[in-house]
């Protein structure tokens, strides 16, 4: 089999996942896109392991480790998303702007989309802090 087939498929899957991570708003959909990117890397690992005939089977062992780490990552990530949803009532990543820079005072043009979420975040920061204390 030509090596370009799995390599190109992995590249395209990775870029699909990249688009999903950048374009999605729901945090769980972002996690799904991260899974796509991880799977693209796994496909590359398996293909190159079969191509190189590694005696230690490093590619397949690393693929198994990556799958296990991805399972751990998705568990922790979903726990965090559920916690955020419980505290904020939303799982949209672009509403969580507590750490964002405050919008400059002289630009009222983008206020509709920027200031309202930050105000909500400032209101809701107190229950979060109380909960962790």
């Amino acid at each position, binding site marked *: *089999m*030509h*090596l*370009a087939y*799995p*390599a*190109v498929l992995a*590249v*395209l*899957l*990775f*870029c*699909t*996942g990249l*688009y*999903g991570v*950048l374009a*999605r*708003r*729901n945090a*769980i*959909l972002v*996690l*799904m*896109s991260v899974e796509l990117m991880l799977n693209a890397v*796994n*496909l590359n690992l*398996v*293909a190159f392991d*079969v191509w190189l*005939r590694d005696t230690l*089977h490093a590619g*397949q*062992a690393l*693929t198994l*480790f990556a*799958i*296990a780490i*991805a*399972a*751990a990552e*998705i*568990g*922790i990530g*979903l*726990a*965090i998303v*559920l916690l955020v*949803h*419980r505290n904020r*009532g*939303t799982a*949209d*990543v*672009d509403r969580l702007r507590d750490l964002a820079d405050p919008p400059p005072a002289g630009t009222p043009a983008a206020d509709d989309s920027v200031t309202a979420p930050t105000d*909500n975040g400032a*209101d809701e920061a107190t*229950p979060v802090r*109380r*909960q962790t204390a």
Partner: protein
Amino acid sequence: MSSAVQLAAATGHGLAAPGHGFLSPTGVEIAFLLVGLATLGAAVVTVTTRQLVHAALWLVVTLGGLAVEYLLLTAEFIAWVQVLIYVGSVVVLLLFGLMLTKAPIGRSPDADSGNRPAALAVALAAAAALVWVVVDAFRTTWIDLDKGVQGSTAVSGESLFRHWVLPFEALSVLLLAALVGAIVLSRRNGDTGGTSGTTGTGGTGGDKGAPTRGKEKR
């Protein structure tokens, strides 16, 4: 005898000229291409659909297609691990997450954020650059799939428990840590729920904010 073998090999390969034909794909390549197209299409639908639950179900198709690709690359054990862990547990976890965060069932208009054109530009640029580099680098490289199975369970297990024991054990510790961390994160504050004084009011305050925010979103 050897000439007979060579003759058989020559007739067996037929028109695929010296060793590998660039424009005469083998059956495995055609199967890989078709399954790869299905996988890629399902992945694209996963990241573009506006129905959140459908995205998770298309992710099942993507991951299953990748398992078939692993089988075609003679990595059997990885393929079944993929089916077990990804299709079996990760997608189920994602579906639970979608339902616990009260994802809307129908089409949700705000599934994509505002920076979709920028994301599309970045993804297309990355895809073009990477495809160009990869095709240029591996134009004359072939995988020899006929020389024994590379990823059977016996071979994988032997190498895993002979050469990779220490990472394996470290990984089990990491899985345990992730398990404990997920439990700690998703538990409500304190063992007693909302009965204790100050944390209880904090919890109810947070919960009181949640439904109004959710309604406001819809």
